């Protein structure tokens, strides 16, 4: 196969895997409601809690932004990291493995499709927060915030690719591990309040997660000093770029290692494990 053919076939795989998700997210009507209205109501609960606690209004903006970012983290956890587990359970994983494309192309397709699916939810949360709860969202700073958001998505989904390689071999522990990661990461990522409130040690560890840093940076861009930032804003984009590079490299290595291990141990086609 020539280089041109290899590139073409891998781009085709990215497109095909992404398209399934994009088409599905609009074809299933119940998904449109389930992925937009319900999560918005869940976020609304926190805004009302904050009002009940007489929190400063800026915290309502924090929780709306956090609600939008939670959507992406949940997507990474449940539709990237553990996706190969679901595919294995359905007997579809081996079909990916016999195709002449890179596993990274399939994961990239999953990531792009997942981002497209999740963006509808994030947009509804943001729009609802602005229109119904009147949270401030300064549009004049939206462009740099969007730039950092894209960098953050790159790093977060690359982390999802690493996790998917680990989950490749697991059985039901994949489900529990995803559950285990969910709430604690909601806590330490500062989805509900600035992460600095956790104390410098806990916040320092939390900053190893790209979603923590990304959310911290986006809040700093939009709300300045009021965001109680963890790291100086100028540090965050280079760190995210570095994390993106490191995670993609590690994902590639981890995927190859885990696939070989899985083949040797005969666990790639094991269902109900």
């Amino acid at each position, binding site marked *: 196969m020539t280089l041109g053919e290899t590139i073409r076939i891998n781009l085709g795989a990215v497109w095909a895997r992404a398209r399934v998700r994009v088409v599905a997210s609009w074809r299933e009507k119940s998904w449109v409601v389930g992925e937009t209205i319900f999560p918005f109501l*869940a976020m609304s609960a926190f805004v009302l809690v904050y009002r009940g*606690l007489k929190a400063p209004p800026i915290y309502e903006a924090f929780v709306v932004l956090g609600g939008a970012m939670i959507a992406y983290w949940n997507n990474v956890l*449940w539709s990237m990291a553990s996706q190969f587990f679901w595919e294995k359970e359905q007997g579809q994983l081996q079909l990916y493995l016999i195709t002449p494309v890179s596993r990274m192309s399939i994961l990239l397709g999953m990531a792009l499709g997942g981002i497209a699916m999740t963006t509808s*939810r994030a947009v509804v949360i943001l729009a609802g927060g602005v229109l119904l709860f009147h949270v401030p969202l300064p549009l004049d700073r939206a462009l740099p915030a969007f730039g950092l958001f894209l960098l953050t998505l790159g790093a977060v989904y690359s982390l999802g690719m690493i996790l998917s390689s680990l989950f490749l071999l697991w059985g039901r522990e994949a489900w529990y591990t995803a*559950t285990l990661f969910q709430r604690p990461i*909601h806590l330490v990522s500062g989805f509900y309040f*600035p992460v600095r409130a956790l104390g410098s040690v806990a916040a320092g560890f939390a900053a190893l997660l790209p979603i923590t840093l990304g959310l911290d940076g986006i809040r700093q861009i939009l709300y300045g000093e009021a965001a109680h930032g963890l790291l100086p804003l100028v540090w965050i984009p280079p760190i995210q770029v570095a994390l993106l590079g490191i995670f993609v490299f590690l994902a590639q290595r981890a995927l190859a290692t885990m696939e070989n291990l899985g083949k040797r141990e005969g666990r790639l086609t094991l269902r109900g494990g």
Partner: protein
Amino acid sequence: MRRTWEVMRAAAWLGWQVEANWADPFLFAVYAIAKPLSTTLILFFMVRVVSQGHATAEAFLFLFIGNTFFLYVTEVLIGISWAVFRDREDYETLKYIYVAPLHLLPYLLGRGFTKMATATLGVAVALAFGGLVLRLPIGTPGTNWIELAGATLVGLVSVAWLGIILAGASLIVARHSINMNEGLSGLFYLLSGAVFSIDVLPRWVQPISLALPFTYWLELIRRILTGRPFAGPLRGVSDGGLWLILLGSTVALAGAAILWFLHCERVARARGLIDWKTNY
């Protein structure tokens, strides 16, 4: 009746194996308690950071009790409906339920028992954490623990029937991601006043909140554990009144759940959805 009980017992055993037999008991216990503990910690930090000294100890106790018992709603409600997706799409066993001499409804209720057990462990750990670490006054000298167990049980029956309603819907819709589950539990979190008094809700939403059994259930549990009323609109309702409303709404919910589930089951079979696969 005996046959139904046997089905529920077998389904509960199966549910337990699916939930727990992949790990040793210690590791499984760690997994089971991580979620309730982190949820409690989120709440603790949220109140400390966000309220900036405005929240009183009583307000935190209100949040803590509601949030802790709401774990039952998230675990059992979501657990029952998720069993439909798992059996239909991953294990591909839902169709075999139909060729076996049993009904799907008691089978799913049995699967819910497993979630009740794991949720009970989580609630117990969260309450112990609240009492021992956060030094919250969980219970008073006059707390009737038998009444608390009874109220918890009735609330669980109510949650299980709501789970059946959701399971019915799951039979006729595509597999939803965890966002749907999160969203639905968030919806009930919002409406039942689990973490804030329902007076904070917009006026037009309050009647919806007052139509949910969970609203009365959480208020009753708070009263049993602290000896005083919390939710503004329910202050005028006596404890006996709360019990009556809770029992009445649970019976009504059970009737509605059975009718809805049977309807959804008929639709799923008519449309050939029993072995549908939708994991995109």
